[in-house]
């Protein structure tokens, strides 16, 4: 049997970042790896322009089985994964993965590229303050953040948020702003003293969007089609980077259609057992080092399954989310310029306990049906007012930080079901009140009763099940992300985060995965 130097499980951002540090080794990437086989015909302009031109292809936008209407009578799905051509992202995941949970929203992916097929590209570095609780510091990650910034292309600006996101030389130009965000920023600059005094900082997000020429990549066209059309080349997707690495390195093998179920560490090798999703037959692959990067939920399943542990409750972290809608009355009835990226600006704020990251979005790219029923008006009222109201609306998504709590856990049952329990101890609402009252100074109005508190799980930042610790114990990892009690098994995804700051976590998952890849490389 062939003995690989390294087996990496998964093809999401964590797996592909670990792989980037192992290009000179004989690596096998094992993945389920579902791809979209759809060829799009109509999707060559923004949805609103296509509607106007009467060029909407119903099958591609709503779907022959009404896929885009999924949210109405099924569980909530992000607009990014419910359009008919985007269904491949979550395809088969629930067929092979059973979950039991009362109040936690689960979304997973078996796609080649994992959830990066759907992500919003928000790519912020963690500061040392964010990394408090980790056994590593910013200095351990900096080199990898820099490499990633250069390689994948991060758009942004060194502005009022640079203490938080770091001043960087290699940023691509910040994306265009919509008139609403422009007005907000202008007003904010006039009221800087007030905002700084109250710990409120506004600036551009850091996004993995290509906004100026970069090798082999298209420049983002501001049409918002990433909600409907697979593989937008101008937004980072680990599938595209995986394919590039495989094309350039003959020593790297990619095998898909395999669900890794367990591993067994032997004297001088690790056996990895994987089930074929078509034939359901098992194959054993052997390796010197194993890197699990199947996303937090799947990596946890593989680990618990391998130790046949049906008792232990692993800690479960996720950023709680609330939405605040804001209206700027000056822009009611304004003709919309529909060409901008949905994440417009970021607000960073603190209270006595926590730091919160709040992304401000425009409602331009998705279908109107996705938000119309949220207006507190009768349906005729909504239909009459919406076209005037939407240009004046900014939606703010507030992320809450998370840390280990005994009531929030994940465990595996004997019949293969993952049980997730997540109780919302955190009382949400007071930070929103502070933001609402401060934003009045900018001409943006909201009311506390309009704040929407999403079910836990909706940030998709699942983390923390196998936390890295200075002195780890069972089902924890060390500062090199080696699983306790094993010699050569490493975890490279969000499972290793011991705490979850209120910030998009993927960029840090990627930087850490590159670091682990390098540690593994050096060990061979």
């Amino acid at each position, binding site marked *: 049997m062939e003995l690989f130097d390294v087996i990496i499980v998964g093809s999401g951002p964590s797996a592909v970042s670990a792989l980037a540090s192992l290009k000179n080794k004989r690596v096998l990437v094992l993945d389920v790896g579902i791809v979209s086989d759809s060829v799009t015909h109509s999707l060559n302009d923004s949805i609103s322009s296509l509607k106007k031109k009467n060029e909407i292809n119903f099958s591609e936008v709503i779907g022959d089985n009404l896929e885009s209407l999924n949210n*109405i009578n099924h569980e909530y799905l992000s607009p990014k994964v419910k359009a008919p051509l985007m269904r491949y992202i979550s395809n088969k995941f629930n067929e092979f993965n059973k979950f039991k949970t009362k109040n936690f929203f689960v979304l997973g992916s078996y796609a080649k590229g994992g959830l990066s097929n759907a992500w919003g590209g928000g790519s912020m570095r963690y500061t040392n303050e964010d990394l408090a609780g980790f056994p590593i510091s910013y200095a351990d990650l900096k080199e990898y953040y820099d490499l990633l910034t250069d390689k994948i292309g991060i758009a942004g600006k060194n502005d009022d948020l640079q203490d938080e996101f770091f001043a960087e030389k290699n940023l691509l130009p910040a994306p265009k702003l919509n008139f609403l965000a422009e007005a907000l920023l202008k007003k904010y600059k006039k009221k800087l003293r007030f905002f700084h005094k109250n710990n409120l900082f506004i600036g551009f997000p850091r996004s993995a969007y290509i906004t100026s020429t970069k090798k082999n990549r298209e420049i983002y066209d501001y049409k918002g089609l990433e909600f409907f059309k697979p593989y937008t080349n101008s937004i980072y997707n680990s599938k595209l980077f995986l394919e590039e690495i495989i094309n350039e390195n003959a020593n790297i093998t990619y095998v898909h259609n395999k669900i890794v179920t367990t591993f067994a560490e032997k004297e001088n090798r690790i056996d990895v057992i994987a089930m074929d999703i078509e034939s359901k037959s098992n194959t054993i692959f052997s390796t010197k080092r194993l890197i699990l990067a199947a996303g937090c939920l799947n990596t946890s399943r593989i680990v618990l399954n391998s130790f046949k542990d049906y008792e232990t409750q692993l800690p479960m972290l996720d950023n709680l989310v609330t939405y605040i809608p804001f209206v700027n009355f000056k822009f009611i009835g304004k003709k919309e310029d529909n060409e901008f990226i949905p994440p417009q600006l970021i607000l960073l704020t603190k209270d006595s306990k926590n730091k919160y990251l709040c992304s401000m979005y425009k409602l331009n790219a998705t*279908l109107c049906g996705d938000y119309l*029923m949220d207006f507190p008006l009768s349906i005729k009222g909504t*239909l009459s007012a919406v*076209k*005037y109201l939407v*240009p004046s609306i900014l939606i703010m998504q507030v992320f809450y930080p998370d840390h280990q709590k005994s009531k929030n856990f994940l465990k595996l049952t004997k019949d293969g079901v993952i049980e997730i329990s997540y109780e919302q101890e955190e009382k949400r609402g007071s930070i929103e009140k502070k933001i609402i009252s401060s934003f009045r100074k900018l001409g943006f109005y909201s009311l506390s009763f309009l704040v929407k508190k999403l079910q836990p799980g909706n940030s998709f930042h699942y983390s923390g099940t196998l936390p890295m610790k200075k002195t780890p114990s069972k089902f924890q990892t060390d500062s090199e992300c080696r699983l306790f009690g094993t010699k050569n098994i490493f975890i490279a995804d969000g499972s290793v985060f011991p705490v979850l700051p209120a910030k998009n976590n993927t960029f840090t998952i990627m930087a850490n995965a590159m670091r682990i890849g390098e540690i593994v490389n050096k060990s061979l």
Partner: protein
Amino acid sequence: MSPASPKEENLTREVEYIFKNLFPKKELTQDIKIQYTLFGNKLCNTGNNVKIRKIIDHKLDVEAIEFFLRIRDRENILTQKIHALIYLIEVKKDFYDEFYVEKDFLLKGLFTLIYFTLRSIYKFFKGFIQVRLYGII
């Protein structure tokens, strides 16, 4: 073409009634009827908690009843069906003007918003009364 089942006939009656109430000046096309029926057929498996038939038989104010029910329980079947209808019409060119403005209309926008906020309050109470009076849920 196979004859419509009683359930499909009901769904067709339903969409005709709702559509006429919401868009009195627009034409309900055959494809919207078919798509609505498809949605209704899939959806009805989740159970029916609103007596939509009664709304039609008594020619009640579907807008008012839906608004009252939505505020009470967002997942009621009438809201789901109207929500589906919105998705189905918004991709039609005929309805483009319902969703987008082509020029700046600040005053008209403000006036519309104030008028429909007040009207929605009235509709809420009207919905409440009709739901109670006619045993809609």
